[in-house]
């Protein structure tokens, strides 16, 4: 029974709960059991979780069952458990952002999205692993050890939200929240065969998201189906007075769009293939699955054309100026004065505040974080600001204009999500520039604030690993990508005879420490 429950989608589970064929406690326990069986820890297993809150999740599940018994469920997803990326503040639950510098910090408040989950009755299973402060594309930069890809435990699950994506792919949770600054939801989705959505900038509150780059970050759903993403997106989205950049207008109905799309008719929909984001530099198997997906869209009635966005070739360079500038300032607050790690300098009798700050930041931040702090600090310095930050902002405007021009011709834009399938752990760890190239196709959406979705397009012939298909829509038209994504998903499932994850290898049970506290305890 337990295995059955963990393989069901969130929409299925919601229906089961509504029909009374299961309880929230039963399915929460089933997922906790699955986590205990396969998650392992830093040295073995998937290691998707940094912290598991069995007690809290089961208590929330029991409360959910009581509400349902009383005939008053709090939401459509009341009782369906969820995992939360460790970059989102959770009251009473450790929040480390994958960094030593926040080890042991327990926030006294909930991020708005977390508060909405709790209010809607979703038991929170725990916090998922990530690259330190969301900086990376492999989750290898977590200070608590990497997450492994359930398709091949020797490989990376993508990043920075590798924990959330791997937890979905390993059936440890039916839902998760991720965050996406340059592709941290979509690229892990692509390499793990799961679905991930970066909403329109401002569509989901960032209050309580520990910022990497405030003007690029968005919270979004990580799921196994397009419909599940729509359900979760609608639940956490919408205006938040605590986030000035959140959009104060009603969301288009995403669930309706996904349901309509699943019917398979895309007649009249214009799909633009971005010239600059495919072909050279993209793995053959990834490119092949992408082109097959395009054929399926045509078959569903869509008109597919090629669209050029010439400035996108500058997106990566632009991103690697704006992001570190904002990050260098955001990370200044980690100074040992109020919370988190405090390291006293060696050989100093009564150290000054400055000496403690220096020693703590030296010991508490990993190399990739330090690299970006140094880059950002340099680029913002007097005399360099205009050349770097100023120029990057101007290019950003040009990229947004390219999107605007493209969306005059087509309804959605598409590309492969990531240039390759999952690479081996350690393969690119010493080559930051090679690592950065993973986000080539996902970054433009963050720079322009438009929404993006990744869904599985199949397995690459050369390595048998999942490839991702990216759909981009105009700002505030998130519904369009749900419609097109659901249509493509339905066609692909029909071709495959079921979800792609059915083909993933079975995971060996982990003998290692599988206590409820995971690795960070």
């Amino acid at each position, binding site marked *: 029974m337990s295995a059955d429950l963990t393989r069901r989608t969130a929409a299925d589970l919601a229906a089961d709960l509504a029909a009374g064929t299961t309880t929230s406690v039963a399915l929460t326990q089933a997922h906790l059991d699955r986590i205990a069986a396969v998650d392992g820890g830093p040295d073995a297993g998937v290691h998707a979780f940094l912290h598991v809150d069995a007690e809290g999740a089961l208590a929330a599940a029991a409360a959910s069952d009581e509400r349902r018994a009383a005939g008053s469920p709090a939401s459509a997803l009341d009782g369906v458990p969820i995992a939360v990326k460790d970059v989102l503040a959770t009251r009473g639950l450790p929040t480390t952002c994958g960094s030593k510098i926040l080890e042991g910090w327990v*926030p006294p408040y909930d991020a708005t999205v977390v508060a909405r989950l709790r209010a809607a009755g979703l038991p929170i299973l725990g916090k998922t692993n990530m690259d330190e402060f969301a900086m990376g594309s492999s989750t290898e930069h977590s200070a608590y050890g990497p997450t492994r890809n359930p398709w091949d435990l020797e490989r990376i699950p993508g990043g920075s939200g590798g924990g959330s994506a791997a937890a979905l792919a390993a059936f440890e949770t039916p839902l998760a929240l991720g965050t996406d600054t340059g592709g941290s939801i979509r690229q892990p989705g692509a390499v793990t065969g799961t679905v991930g959505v970066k909403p329109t900038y401002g569509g989901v509150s960032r209050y309580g998201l520990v910022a990497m780059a405030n003007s690029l970050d968005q919270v979004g759903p990580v799921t196994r189906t397009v419909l599940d993403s729509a359900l979760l997106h609608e639940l956490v989205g919408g205006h938040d007075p605590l986030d000035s950049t959140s959009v104060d207008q009603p969301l288009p109905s995403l669930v309706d769009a996904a349901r309509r799309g699943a019917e398979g008719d895309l007649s009249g929909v214009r799909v633009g293939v971005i010239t600059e984001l495919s072909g050279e530099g993209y793995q053959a198997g990834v490119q092949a699955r992408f082109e097959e997906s395009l054929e399926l869209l045509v078959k569903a009635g869509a008109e597919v054309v090629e669209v050029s966005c010439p400035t996108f070739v500058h997106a990566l360079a632009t991103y690697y100026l704006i992001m570190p500038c904002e990050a260098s300032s955001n990370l200044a607050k980690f100074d040992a004065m109020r919370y988190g790690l405090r390291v006293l300098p060696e050989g100093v009798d009564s150290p000054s505040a400055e000496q403690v700050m220096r020693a703590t930041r030296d010991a508490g931040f990993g190399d990739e974080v330090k690299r970006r702090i140094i880059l950002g600090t340099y680029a913002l310095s007097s005399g360099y600001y205009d050349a770097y930050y100023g120029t990057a902002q101007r290019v950003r405007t040009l990229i947004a204009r390219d999107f605007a021009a493209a969306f005059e011709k087509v309804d959605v834009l598409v590309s492969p999500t990531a240039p390759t399938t999952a690479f081996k752990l350690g393969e690119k760890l010493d080559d930051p520039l090679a690592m950065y190239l993973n986000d080539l196709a996902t970054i433009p959406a963050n720079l322009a604030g438009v929404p993006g979705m990744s869904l599985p397009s199949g397995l690459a012939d050369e390595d048998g690993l999942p490839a991702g298909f990216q759909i981009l829509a105009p700002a505030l038209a998130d519904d369009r990508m749900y419609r097109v994504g659901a249509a493509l998903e339905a066609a692909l499932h029909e071709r495959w005879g079921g979800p792609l994850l059915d083909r993933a290898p079975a995971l060996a049970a982990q003998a290692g420490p599988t206590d409820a506290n995971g690795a960070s305890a």
Partner: protein
Amino acid sequence: MSTSTTGDVLVDYDEVLAAYDPAMGLEVHVELNTATKMFCGCPTEFGAEPNTQVCPTCLGLPGAMPVVNAKAVESAIRIGLALNCDIAEWCRFARKNYFYPDMPKNFQTSQYDEPIAFEGWMDVLVPTADGGTETVRVEIERAHMEEDTGKSLHVGGSTGRIHGADYSLVDYNRAGIPLIEIVTKPITGLGAQAPEVAKAYVAQLRELIVALGVSDARMDQGSIRADVNLSLAPKGSGALGTRTETKNVNSLRSVERAVRYEMQRHAAVLGEGRSILQETRHWHEDTGVTTSGREKSDAEDYRYFPEPDLVPVAPSREWVEQLRGTMPENPRARLARLQESWGFTDLEMRDTVGAGALGLVEETIAAGAAPQSARKWWLGEMARRANDSGVEIGALGVTPQHVARVQAMVDAGELTDKLARQVFDGLLAGEGTPEEVVAARGLAVVSDEGALSAAVDKAIAENPAIADKIRDGKVAAAGALIGAVMKEMRGQADAARVKELVLEKLS
């Protein structure tokens, strides 16, 4: 030449002026009296237990975000309009990045190159040697919004400063309180008048802030803080010398003294052929000197960039015009109106303004006192006491309502002027309201006719010769008997009534 208590050599003031032209720039921080902080909903009340008025946002906890306080924007616009500034149609907040333990985020959310208000002026009325006033126009460069930092308390060591302290405590209640920073353009061409103009500018700015009702405007509580930038250039050169920025100047009197001190110190340094170090200096209220703080060099780079967590502030023109309608009258017109209404002479008016008591007198009159009574208490009694204890007249702890109430008691014959002064002693000592002081100190005029009559009879009996004179019509002699009665009554009698009784009994 002379030497300050810290060993700074000071050139005599006249000699400074003979050789140099001073230039100054004033930066005034005004803490707004909004109910909540600049970027969160925490209360702003002064004097609460440390670290009780804090939340994730003003503590800079990971993930927390700011939201702009609309009331603070309104106050900023009103200040800008009152200073004849242009109001930005679109402006942003920026991050000023530097590490300091009392800054929760290690950046201050401020405005940098896009201030809400810019390019204004204020006409400052400055007393002249001949007893009149003249107008000096001070150009305003900008007024911008920012948040206050927390407050550090350095424990141990002798100076109360961070160097030499054993440890430091930080109170974040103040972190995030809305501030408006008002920056002048360089003020030049004033010569000897520079210190006075600096004081008059801050005093008049304070009056304006009070009239706008946007701040408590208490210099003693730090709700108005002035930084004084000063430089000297060789006389007639038209150049600007290297400046120092003196912080923490927390009274009007000190603004004047700090400018004068730095002029004298700069001249001494320059006179020795050395150059002025561009640095921050600290003003010491008690000793009247400045000491060196951190050095400002090119190394200090705040790496400003627009705050990405906030959307631009874009006040509509309709709103700005509506706020323009809430402006207090201009200071010159206000002075003329008040002088007319109060019947003060030019000299009385000048002294009132000079003592920083214009608003206090106005409020006292509004609370029911006659203009001359209000002036008498503030400029006589209160100004003297403020001067004695070295605090601002408005910070004595005696309010206009107190003064009006005490005067009302005098008018009703319940207090004499002498008793009233004792009531003020009590008020200054924090003994409560005027009524409470009167009751606790037993200061009421004795209106018991029986006791008065007995005292008068006793005085007449003890002074038969004087009584005879009065019976003979020498009314002036009554003074001695009245004095005797007052002494007997320990001052708590109405002298006029005593005189009546004496004359009645001896007629």
